């Protein structure tokens, strides 16, 4: 018995020793090694080096890029995904009709053709959009991609029972047959009045109403072609058939997946992608702090979520010049703001709303969200700087030091007949500590002019459906202010503004993100922009809308969000895309 025990212990020890020695003696190249090489090569990094230019440019091929995600994808299926990072990453295995230009900074907001030869051609007053596909593009199995595959991809994405995660842009805008529910449930229904495919290379979209920005819809992952014969519905995400430079090798949903080169992809058909690494290794559901540590050590190349470093890492990185030099701090197209509800007295008076605008301490707002680097840049209007059409306006300056202009606020209170201030409630999402801190900061700063706020937390899941976003409830419960936030699906005035300033999206049943802007003039401007197909004429209209909403003081802008991104060691072609507010994954490589 004793000898058996001894043998067992010895065997265990030997196994461990073998394991350790095997790992210690490995010869595989690691990211940290390549990173060290780069340091010697003279590519010197500095803070924000990848904001407006390509950091570490290279055309060198080879290597495996390692990505990690603290959470999990909603879905890898192009018809069922709604995360910004997923739309960024999907370009590696799928080609939509149009895509954002793979370039740093403002240039990245331009749309360029991808699967299509050109951007869409509008006709019938922008109610019809036609795209011609490039010749010679194939699926990973060698089958040529036709317009019917694009049409099928869009149609299947309409089935919100099978694909509940995705957006409803196509459901809402295409001129579909009545009660059409997608190709699974509405089998055999003729859908040519919505999408026509007159030949294998042409796809024509017919809309219910004119929409000048349809090219932005054409860049959505739902226009990535899906071969009907290989469609497995809700299970398609387990193996998406690739039309891009990489295809799935292994996919353990919830754990991670690998991409390898797609030998059917032809560089000649694709002017946008370099396809530099030999493959991608993606881990999901990884501890967020662990991701930061691995990025800093060089064990990992990219934090795929692209939302920035964790609080535990921020202090360490920002105080160490060497570490900070390896980071970028982009302003993203997200606004943290407070809705000022004109349905609640006395905020039905413009001057009372203006008093809130002037009295708010913007620095305290910023501090509540985590400060300059991870919270954001103090916002002076709605439209973030990354959205084309943005104009620098500041109708309600918050004093020289941004701590609020008490004198102006008191003037406004007098003008609205409430010289001693008034009482109202402020709603926020109970699960969000930053919103609670912001509500407290506003409570303190508005108290300086006599506006007394009572904090009202509500559950996040029902915030818009039952509480702050339900007009009747908000009015009855005097929710004069409500914390809010909005990020654009793409850098365009329509995508950013329409859902938060168009009064026609407000429903009595609740659920709308717009809980305070009710201005017919704003609605008219949105319609005007929707019909304007000339980009140069359309973009100034977004600035007009921004000015109009601010003039009405329906919204107290807080911050244009920022994140602190860590550049992976040894990664080439690193740049921040304004279109996504994160690193563009499409042309990254390894030294």
């Amino acid at each position: 018995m004793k000898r058996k025990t001894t043998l067992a212990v010895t065997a265990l020890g030997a196994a461990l020793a073998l394991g350790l020695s095997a790992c210690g003696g490995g010869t595989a190249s690691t990211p940290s090694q390549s990173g060290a090489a780069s340091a010697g090569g003279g590519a010197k990094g500095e803070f924000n080096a990848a904001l407006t230019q390509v950091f570490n440019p290279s055309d060198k091929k080879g290597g495996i890029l390692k990505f990690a995600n603290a959470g999990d994808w909603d879905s890898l299926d192009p018809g069922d995904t709604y995360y910004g990072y997923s739309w960024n990453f999907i370009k590696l295995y799928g080609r939509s009709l149009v895509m954002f230009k793979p370039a740093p900074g403002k240039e990245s907001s331009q749309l360029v053709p991808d699967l299509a030869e050109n951007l869409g051609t509008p006709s019938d007053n922008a109610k019809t959009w036609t795209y011609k596909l490039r010749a010679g593009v194939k699926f990973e199995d060698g089958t040529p991609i036709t317009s019917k595959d694009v049409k099928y991809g869009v149609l299947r994405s309409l089935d919100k029972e099978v694909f509940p995660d995705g957006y409803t842009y196509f459901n809402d805008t295409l001129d579909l047959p009545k009660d059409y529910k997608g190709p699974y449930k509405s089998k055999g229904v003729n859908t040519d009045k919505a999408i026509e495919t007159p030949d294998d290379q042409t796809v024509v979209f017919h809309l219910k109403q004119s929409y000048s920005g349809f090219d932005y819809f054409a860049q959505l992952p739902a226009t990535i072609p899906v071969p009907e014969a290989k469609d497995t519905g809700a299970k398609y995400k387990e193996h998406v058939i690739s039309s891009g430079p990489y295809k799935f090798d292994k996919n353990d949903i919830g754990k991670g997946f690998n991409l390898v080169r797609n030998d059917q992809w032809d560089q000649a058909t694709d002017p946008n992608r370099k396809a530099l690494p030999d493959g991608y290794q993606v881990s999901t559901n990884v501890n967020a702090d662990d991701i930061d540590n691995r990025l800093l050590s060089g064990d990992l190349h990219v934090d795929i979520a692209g939302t920035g470093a964790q609080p535990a890492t921020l202090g360490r990185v920002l105080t160490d010049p060497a570490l900070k030099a390896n980071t970028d701090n982009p302003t993203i197209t997200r606004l943290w703001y407070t809705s000022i509800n004109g349905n609640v007295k006395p905020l039905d008076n413009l001057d009372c709303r203006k008093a809130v605008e002037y009295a708010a301490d913007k620095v305290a707002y910023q501090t509540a969200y985590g400060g300059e680097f991870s919270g954001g840049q103090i916002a002076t209007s709605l439209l973030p700087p990354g959205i084309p059409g943005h104009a620098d306006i500041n109708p309600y300056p918050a004093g020289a030091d941004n701590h609020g202009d008490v004198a102006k606020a008191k003037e406004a209170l007098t003008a609205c007949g409430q010289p001693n201030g008034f009482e109202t409630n402020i709603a926020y999402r109970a699960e969000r500590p930053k919103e609670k801190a912001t509500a407290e900061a506003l409570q303190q700063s508005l108290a300086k002019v006599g506006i007394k706020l009572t904090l009202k937390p509500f559950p996040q899941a029902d915030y818009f459906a039952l509480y702050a976003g339900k007009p009747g409830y908000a009015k009855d419960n005097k929710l004069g202010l409500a914390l809010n936030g909005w990020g654009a699906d793409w850098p365009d005035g329509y995508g950013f503004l329409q859902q938060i300033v168009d009064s026609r999206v407000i429903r009595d049943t609740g659920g709308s993100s717009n809980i305070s802007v009710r201005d017919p003039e704003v609605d008219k401007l949105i319609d005007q922009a929707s019909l304007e197909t000339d980009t140069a004429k359309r973009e100034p209209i977004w600035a007009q809308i921004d000015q109009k909403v601010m003039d009405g003081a329906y919204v107290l802008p807080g911050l244009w969000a920022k994140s602190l991104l860590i550049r992976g060691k040894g990664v080439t072609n690193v740049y921040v895309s304004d279109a996504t507010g994160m690193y563009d994954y499409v042309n990254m490589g390894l030294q």
Partner: protein
Amino acid sequence: MVTYIIRRLIWGVFMLAIVSMITFMIFFLVPRLAGATSESLATRYVGRTATAEQVKIAAEKLGFNDPLVVQYGRFAKGIVAGADYDYGPGVERCPAPCFGYSFLTRLPVWPDLLDRLPVTISLALGAAVIWLIAGVATGVVSALRRGSFFDRAAMSIALAGVSLPIFFTGIVSLVVFSYGRPLAFAAPGGSFTPFFDNPAQWAYSLILPWITLAFLYAAGYARLTRSGMLETMNEDYIRTARAKGLTERVVVFKHGLRGALTPILTIFGLDLGLLMGGAVLTESTFSLPGIGKYAIDAITNQDLPKVMGVTLVAAFFVVVANLVVDLLYAVVDPRVRLT
């Protein structure tokens, strides 16, 4: 003996049914009592700009409009008889035991659980071997050298082991022994390799989680063994054994340690059973895709079929561990008779 085992197994099935009902009530009934509607529950499982119509469709698809009894009956039937699932182009059979489909990934839960079990078993068994050997050995030596420097030092370290949470020791150990530092000998987090793919890589990927988890448990075992040994070594039969002229090694290991093992066995069985249901903090800290990580992700996302599945699997291991411990009592302690 056989009658005893059969009776315990039936009792175990009954226990699992109770656990499933309580879990179901916590996650399905309590929100209803707090005012949640079918639609408000369904909003968690649709896209972030879903329309009211989309939410309605999701509520119907997930069965939230049915009475709770019907919803529970459907879940229980799936485990016993399997269920059908409409995945779009067709309907697929989810064979028994079917724990349903994730509300978020819309993939079956049972294969997920089976996929994650090897990670949890690898972690739990490896750590158990380390903590049992280290903990019991330390406890025995401490008891035999009561009051010595070794005893005091070992018990102080044991106290630290019990007191420090895994998310602290885990992150510190990763920072010190991984991430390419001078002392690095272990794999970074999230690098699990299955045993049958590469045993050496398997051990390499788990060595740090094993040691960290074992540090927590070994501390308790060392203290428990020490107190048990101190008590046993003062028993009359130990004096008798010495009087018979047996060597000290035989007295300590054959008579003393055996007597002190019974409570350790009880605790060990329960600890191992609980860990088989997922070492939540260890798996989260080291990003190991085991049952514990699966559980915490399911709870965070309120993915109810996953929560139900993982709770039942964890309860199953606890029930089995209890049965095995009771059976082993009879082996370790001849005075125990199972009836």
